[in-house]
């Protein structure tokens, strides 16, 4: 459990690299899929345990479907929708983790909610969602590779 709490230099490096890439992508393309913190944190967690990626994708899909339904019925928007997304993500992740019986970092419970909300905003804005998702995959893969190589070197 402590490996999620105690930060090692390579994790901090990964986090900072994620921020730098995010800054560049936002300046150039105004892309925001995932939000500021989700991609680097998810890369760090995935390197610790690949099952977290699967868990993240499932929880994100359910959170996204939930906020779509909430907007469709009640026209909820803004921060309240963000809370709905995070709440759903927390519940779904908790159930999945309980069923799978794996140790997990607390932040993982809200990352899918943040991601789903940002994805929802991108889908409904004029930006190119495919491009955003492509850039996100690029950033995520890049961080995974760097993290993996650095992890090997560090350990």
């Amino acid at each position: 459990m402590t490996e999620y709490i105690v930060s090692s230099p390579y994790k901090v490096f990964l986090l900072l690299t994620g921020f730098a890439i995010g800054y560049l992508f936002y300046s150039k393309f105004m892309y925001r899929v995932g939000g500021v913190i989700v991609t680097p944190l998810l890369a760090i967690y995935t390197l610790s345990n690949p099952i977290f990626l699967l868990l993240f994708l499932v929880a994100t899909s359910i959170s996204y479907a939930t906020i779509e339904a909430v907007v469709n019925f009640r026209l909820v928007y803004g921060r309240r929708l963000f809370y709905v997304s995070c709440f759903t993500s927390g519940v779904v992740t908790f159930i999945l983790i309980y069923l799978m019986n794996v140790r997990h970092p607390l932040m993982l419970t809200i990352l899918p909610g943040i991601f789903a909300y940002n994805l929802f905003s991108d889908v409904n804005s004029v930006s190119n969602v495919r491009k955003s998702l492509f850039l996100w995959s690029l950033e995520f893969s890049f961080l995974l590779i760097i993290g993996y190589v650095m992890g090997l070197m560090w350990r």
Partner: protein
Amino acid sequence: MIESLRVRSPSRRDFERYIRNLQRSKHRILVEGMRGKSSLVEILTWLLERRGAAVAGKITGLTPEVIYRGRKIPIDRGEDEKKFFLDHENVLFMANYPADIYVVENQAIKRATMRLVRRIYRPDIIVIPNVRYEHMEGLGDTPEQLTEAFLLGLDGVDLIIFSDPNPVNRKLFEELIERRRVESDVHIINVPEELSWIPAIERFFISRELLGRLGMEPLTEKEVEDLAGSLLIDLIPHSARDFLWYDASKANDPESTQLILNFILKNGLNEDRPVYVLACLRGDRIDRSRAFLDMFGRLRYDPRVERVWVTGKYLRPVLNTLGMKGSKLSHDFGEVIEVIERVRRDGGFLFLMVNGVCDFMDGIRRFLEAEEAESLRRREESILSHRRIRLIKEMITLSLMSTTRPRILA
């Protein structure tokens, strides 16, 4: 080659010129609020220039422009006009156009962006024509939160002019000024009730107040007439073959849209002409769709409104509100032509509303404009006649000229 201001990352020299122009300028006027900001910037720049002042005006929004020495200079935001940085655009504007008085539109999108623009211009005068239900996601959901958003970051502001024709909004503004202990001189204009039904009437009172405060020659009767003329001409429904139409989709907030609809129903249409409404809802503007729910509720029970067509995303709550009067329209243009044929058959009036910036609305607008151009010989005329326009113009002129002049800014 057409001159334009290209938005880019400002250089060190740009920043130096920006600071120099900022320090040299005598007044920096920010036009805020919700509705009619661009027009007000244009009017104020025009009026100040006519009085010999060196003015630089800036209209923000989707077609941003600089108004400088009697010319309109487009602002080029690059390939994607929605992707630019506010600080870059505004710093470059001030760096490139030296002036004694700056008149700038501050878009009320988010509290943070409003404060950022205030920090760039350090305004000494802020003008707020009205506060409406708009940009709720960024400014607040309730009238109190929305109004409060304009009272943040007022350091260095000497004068605030507020002129919402709605007495409820004026009272709320007054209360918030007291509660927040605003130190700036606040002038709340009481727009006469007999004129408050005219859309955008507040611009006349603000112009008069501002010129007076700056110690300039007051509005002339001719200027008021010209301004009133251009305002009223904009409110005349367009004529197409056998029917009339009006595009209120740029109003973007329910109060302004209702004001325009009421004005047209009262002054521009015969009572027996059926009214049809077409609204486009955007997925990225859920706050706006929600703000319009009450108005859709009123349309449902308005006996003159025959049908309301809605298109776009997240329509279910709107259709529920409209009940039997509402219909969903797909983005298929064939359906739109059916809609227009129905309005034509009934000799009706088609009212476009909610989102002006929308591909669907652009298509309809182009179609209707083409119809209008083709059918000049067979056009239906709005009853908003020259005589009626003259009467309303006289009302405005009389009201503005008869009341006391504002005192000069210390």
